[in-house]
């Protein structure tokens, strides 16, 4: 079984936010009004953490793209009362929108604040309605959603590989954020495969994972010289 993982090279990342936009379009994420977004109900599966260090003339800005970390030992799946969030054999942490009862316990349990909730019925401007992605199911009001590592793309990739009777090659399956990144800072692949680029990068001395001390074993690995 492959184990899908993501590597984000923060030394290459310019913080442009293209990944966020690509993600939003790819996954039919609702467009939240600015007023709602200001009270903390903004919906991003791929979020961008922005921190400022130092005082005015010498400000250091850090921009870190943050998807769901698809932990190998996820705290969210353990607390779900109805099995609406689960980890599959390939290490993807999925969300079943039609089963979710909206208790938001998984959001509370996630140390990375990776999940978002549909506070109202999701809405799109009219122009968007004609270009919704048919591969991704639309969510309804009152359910939790989060980054799926574009699992719908994996289905297509698998079908193609099956048809051509071959294995999935490294880099064939990539989520929308990785594909759109202008500086190629996002890598994606099978971390159990010793030949894959993701595996090689994860062994780099620059690599780190968020809050490794919690034992959640996130499958998103950051590369950075700064830390």
């Amino acid at each position, binding site marked *: 079984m492959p184990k899908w993982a993501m590597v984000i090279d923060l030394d290459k990342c310019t913080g442009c936010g293209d990944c966020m936009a690509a993600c939003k379009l790819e996954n039919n994420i609702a467009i939240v009004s600015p007023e*709602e977004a200001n*009270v*903390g*109900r*903004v919906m991003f599966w791929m979020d961008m*953490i922005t*921190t400022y260090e130092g005082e005015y003339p010498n400000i250091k800005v*850090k921009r*870190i793209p*943050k998807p769901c970390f698809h932990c190998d030992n996820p*705290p969210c799946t*353990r*607390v*779900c*009362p*109805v*099995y*609406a969030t689960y980890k599959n054999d390939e290490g993807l942490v999925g969300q079943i929108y039609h*089963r*979710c*009862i*909206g*208790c*938001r*316990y998984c*959001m*509370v*349990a996630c*140390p*990375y*604040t990776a999940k*978002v*909730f*549909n*506070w*109202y*019925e999701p809405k799109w401007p009219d122009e968007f309605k004609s270009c919704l992605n048919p591969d991704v199911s639309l969510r*309804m*009001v*009152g*359910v*939790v959603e989060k980054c799926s590592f574009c699992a719908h793309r994996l289905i297509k990739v698998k079908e193609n590989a099956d048809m051509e009777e071959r294995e999935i090659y490294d880099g064939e399956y990539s989520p929308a954020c990785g594909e759109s990144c202008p500086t190629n800072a996002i890598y994606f692949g099978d971390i159990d495969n010793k030949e894959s680029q993701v595996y090689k990068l994860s062994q780099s001395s620059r690599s780190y994972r*968020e*809050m490794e001390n*919690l034992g*959640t074993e996130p499958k998103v690995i950051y590369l950075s010289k700064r830390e």
Partner: protein
Amino acid sequence: MPKNKQLDFGQDAALYRPIYETGKGFYITVCVLLAVYLWALYLYITQVYYGLGVTGMNQPITWGFYIVNFVFFIGISHAGTLISAILRLSKAEWRRPITRMAEVITAIVLAIGGLHPILDLGRPDRMLNLLSDGRLQSPLLWDVTSITAYFTASTIYLYLPMIPDIAKLRDRGTKLKWFYNFLSWGWQGTAHQVKVLNRAINILMVMVIPIAISVHTVISYIFSMTLQPGWHSTIFGPYFVVGAIFSGIAALLIVMIVFRKVYHLEEYLKEIHFQYLSTLLLIMSLLWFYFTFSEFLTGIFGSQTHELHIIAYKFTGVYAPFFWGMVICNFVIPVIILSFKKFKTITGIMIVSISVVIGMWLERLNIVVPSLANPRMDLPLGIYIPSLVEWALFIGGIAVFMLGFTMFAKFFPLISIWEIEEGRKESIKDVEKRLRSYLPGKET
């Protein structure tokens, strides 16, 4: 005391009178409470219709008032059954006029508190998923099972000791005879029946104590089973139980004082009952402080970054007024008032009880919100301002409690009549005998 005595109530007139004589005040109270309830219900329907967006909750602070009130109400419900079971078990004779009220509080508040997680659901229509696809491994399901068990046990524990009183009402036969006849289960007060009933109550009171403790422990597990700083702590189980009994006693005292006044029960609820209960309240206050102190000291001494963030947020940040308010309400006021005989009057006890109930509610708020407002990733601080809907459902919950209690008092005696009679007839002898057995020398 009304002068026109139409019915002869006998010795315990004050206990029967509220059931047979209905004043204007009763109808006004019921109407007001019903109106509040309907208003809250209307706002809840808007929440179901529009989604949870009508509340003040948002992304880092995904749990708000509903979970706070859930923990708070369930905490209050520990007044009853636990206290009355402990008092019965320890053969405290002064329990007799108190137990019934305590048990009623439990049954009503537990039903209200138990429904709160449903208010919190984004999709209440999918509640039944819990039946078909529930995961018993989730702490939320532990709650569902333990609260159901506690509710069943406490309603049975309320009902069984009420059977002899129901039979008394049946034998008067002036009001709802069929109803009391149905509920009295053929009680005639024979020796065998008394034996059966006492045996059942004894088994139940032993069972109810662990169930009650498990309920609040399991509620604390909802928080402590996650990895969040400020929640992930082994002390949470006993801390919540102590807090629950603490707020429970305070609520019981408030109810006792109010109904003593309204129903003229001064003969039954004497100063001494309040003295004893308030001593218990003082002990719980000190115990609560001890737990709070150890909880925060371990956090500060260990000084993990995220843990310290949250503690600083509570001590000096946005939540400082709520945190210090909680310390004043739960520790400073009770200790000052209850330590001095001069202040320990009924009014003083009422002030302490109200302050403790408010303080314990603040404690639940201090546990739930600050941990969520400080996400571990470098995200901005969350801000939580509860909306009208959340306030309305909180007030509505309190109104339903008051309504339930008033309605109960209209149909059943609030003080156990047969236990008072038993106390008059037998306990004095019993206690004397018991006392002799404690003393050195031969029993006679």
